[in-house]
C-alpha cells in the first residue's frame, strides 16, 4: 500500500462502518415491517412510505418544508443587507465577521435555551411588558411556529451571511461605479447590478439555511414544545416512544435523500466552484 492509501484508510473505514453502513441499515429497515415488540421483521413492504402520505404525516411534512422555507426567506432578507455592510466594512471587515460568528460558535443548546429563557411566561419579554402595563397577562410567546422560526433564524443566519459576504466582497467596484455614472440610482444599482451578480451567493446561502432547517430537531423540540412537530421530531418519536423503527426509517430516508439531493445540486452548480 502506498502511504497515501495508508493515510486514507482510517477515515474510509470509520466513515464506511459508522456512517455509510448505518444509513444503509435505515434504508433497509424502511422497507420492512414493525415487529410485535417493536422489532423489525419481514415481509418487505412499501407500507411505511405510503403511510407518509397519510394526512396526519403529510401535514408534518408540509409544515417542515413551510417552516424551513420561511426561515430561509427571513435569513435572506435579514442577511443580505448585513453581508453588504460587512463587505464594505474596509479594515473592520474581520471584526464584523467575528461579531456574526462568535455567538454561532457557542453551544447550540445554550443558544436555544437562551430564547426559552427570554420568551417563557416569566421571561424577560413578558416581565417587561407587564411591568410597563402593556399587557396584564403573559403573552404565549413560546411553543408555537413563531418561536420555532425565531430559533431557526437565530441559529442559521450566519450560514447565509458567510457565503453572501464572500460573493459580495468579490464584486468589482468598477461595475457599481459604472452603474452610478450611467445614472442609476442606488436602489436601481442594487436591484439590477448587485443582486443579479451575487445570485450564486444568495442561492448557496439559502441552501445552507434550508437544509439544516428542514432537518431541525432540537429547535422545534425546545421552542415548539411538542406542538410544532417537524420531520426531525417525527423521526425521533418513531425511534423512541412509538418504537416503530421501519416507519421512522422511512421518514429518515426521505429527510436524508432531500438533504443529499440539495447538497448535490449545490456542489454541482457554478456556485460551489466559485465559493468552495
Amino acid at each position, binding site marked *: 500500500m502506498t502511504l497515501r492509501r495508508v493515510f*486514507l484508510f482510517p477515515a474510509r473505514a470509520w466513515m464506511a462502518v459508522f456512517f455509510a453502513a448505518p444509513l444503509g441499515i435505515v434504508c433497509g429497515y424502511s422497507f420492512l415491517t414493525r415487529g410485535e415488540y417493536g422489532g423489525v421483521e419481514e415481509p418487505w413492504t412499501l407500507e411505511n412510505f405510503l403511510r407518509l402520505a397519510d394526512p396526519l404525516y403529510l401535514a408534518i411534512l408540509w409544515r417542515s418544508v413551510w417552516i424551513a422555507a420561511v426561515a430561509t426567506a427571513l435569513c435572506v432578507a435579514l442577511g443580505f443587507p448585513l453581508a453588504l455592510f460587512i463587505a464594505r466594512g474596509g479594515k473592520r471587515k474581520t471584526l464584523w465577521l467575528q461579531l456574526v460568528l462568535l455567538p454561532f460558535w457557542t453551544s447550540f443548546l445554550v443558544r436555544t435555551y437562551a430564547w426559552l429563557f427570554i420568551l417563557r411566561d416569566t421571561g424577560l419579554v413578558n416581565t417587561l411588558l407587564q411591568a410597563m402595563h402593556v399587557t396584564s397577562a403573559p403573552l404565549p410567546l413560546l411553543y408555537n411556529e413563531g418561536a420555532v422560526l425565531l430559533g431557526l433564524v437565530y441559529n442559521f443566519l450566519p450560514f447565509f451571511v458567510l457565503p453572501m459576504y464572500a460573493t459580495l466582497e468579490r464584486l468589482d467596484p468598477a461595475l457599481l461605479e459604472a452603474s452610478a455614472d450611467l445614472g442609476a440610482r442606488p436602489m436601481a444599482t442594487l436591484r439590477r447590478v448587485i443582486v443579479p451578480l451575487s445570485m450564486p451567493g444568495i442561492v448557496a446561502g439559502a441552501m445552507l439555511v434550508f437544509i439544516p432547517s428542514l432537518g431541525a430537531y432540537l429547535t422545534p423540540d425546545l421552542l415548539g414544545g411538542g406542538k410544532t412537530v417537524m420531520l426531525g421530531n417525527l423521526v425521533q418519536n418513531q425511534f423512541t416512544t412509538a418504537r416503530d423503527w421501519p416507519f421512522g426509517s422511512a421518514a429518515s430516508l426521505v429527510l436524508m435523500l432531500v438533504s443529499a439531493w440539495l*447538497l448535490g445540486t449545490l456542489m454541482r452548480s457554478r456556485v460551489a466552484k466559485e465559493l468552495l
Partner: protein
Amino acid sequence: MLKQRALGVYAACIFVFLHAPLVILIFFSFNAGRFTVWEGFSTRWYEAAMNDQQLADGLANSLTIALIAAALSTVIGTAAAYGMWRRGARWLSGMLYLSLVTPEIVTGVSLLALYQWAFRFLHLQLGMHTVIVAHVAFSIAYVTIVVAARLRNYDRTLEEAAMDLGATEWRAFTRVTLPAIAPAVAAAGLLALVVSFDDYVITSLVAGVDSETLPMVIYAMARRGVSPVVNAVSALIVVAFGALILLSQRLQDP
C-alpha cells in the same frame, strides 16, 4: 450607492439580535432572585451548579468523551486531509460532505440502528464507547476541512525537496509537512473538541445510563422548567467555548 451609515445602523440591530440573548442569559445568571427581575448580585447559582452532583457527573463524562473523540478524529481527519491533498478521494470526500448535511437526528437514529443490530452478536451495551464512536464519525469532516484548507496554501515543493534530499515519504511528512501545518491541526482539534462537547441530539440517542453528558443534563433541566442554575452553567459554557474558538481561529491564521 446605498448609504453605508444606514446599513451600519441596520447591522448594529442585527448584532444586538445575535448577542443580546447570550448577554441577557449571562447577566441573569448573577441574579439573586429566581425570576427575570433583578434582585441584586449573587453567585449563588454558580455555587449551586458547583455542588450539583448530576452536573459534575455530566461534565466529567462530556470531558472524557470530547477529549478522546477529538484526539481520535484529529489523527484520522488529518491523515485523511493529507491523503486527499495531492489527489482527491471522491468516495471519502462525498461521505464527509454528506455527514455534514445529514440531519443530526438521522445520523443518530441510524447509528442506534447499527448498534442494536451489532449488539445481537456482541455482548455490549450503549455507553461511553458508543458515544465516542459516534462523535468521531461526525467530527472527522470538521477536522479534514480545516486541515485541507491549510494544505491548499502549503508549498508542496518543500516536501519534494525533502525527498530529493533522501527523505522517505513518511519522513518528509513527519519532519517537514506536519510541523508546517501543526497550528491548523491544533485548531482542527480544538474545533472537534467543541463540536463533540456541544452535541446533544446524536449523543442522547446513543448514550447509555452511565454516560449522560453535560448537554443531556442541561436539556433535562431546561425541559423541567427554567432554573437559574442552567443559566450559570450556560454562561460558563459560552465563555469557555468562546475562548477555545478564538484560540482555534488564532491558530488557523496567525
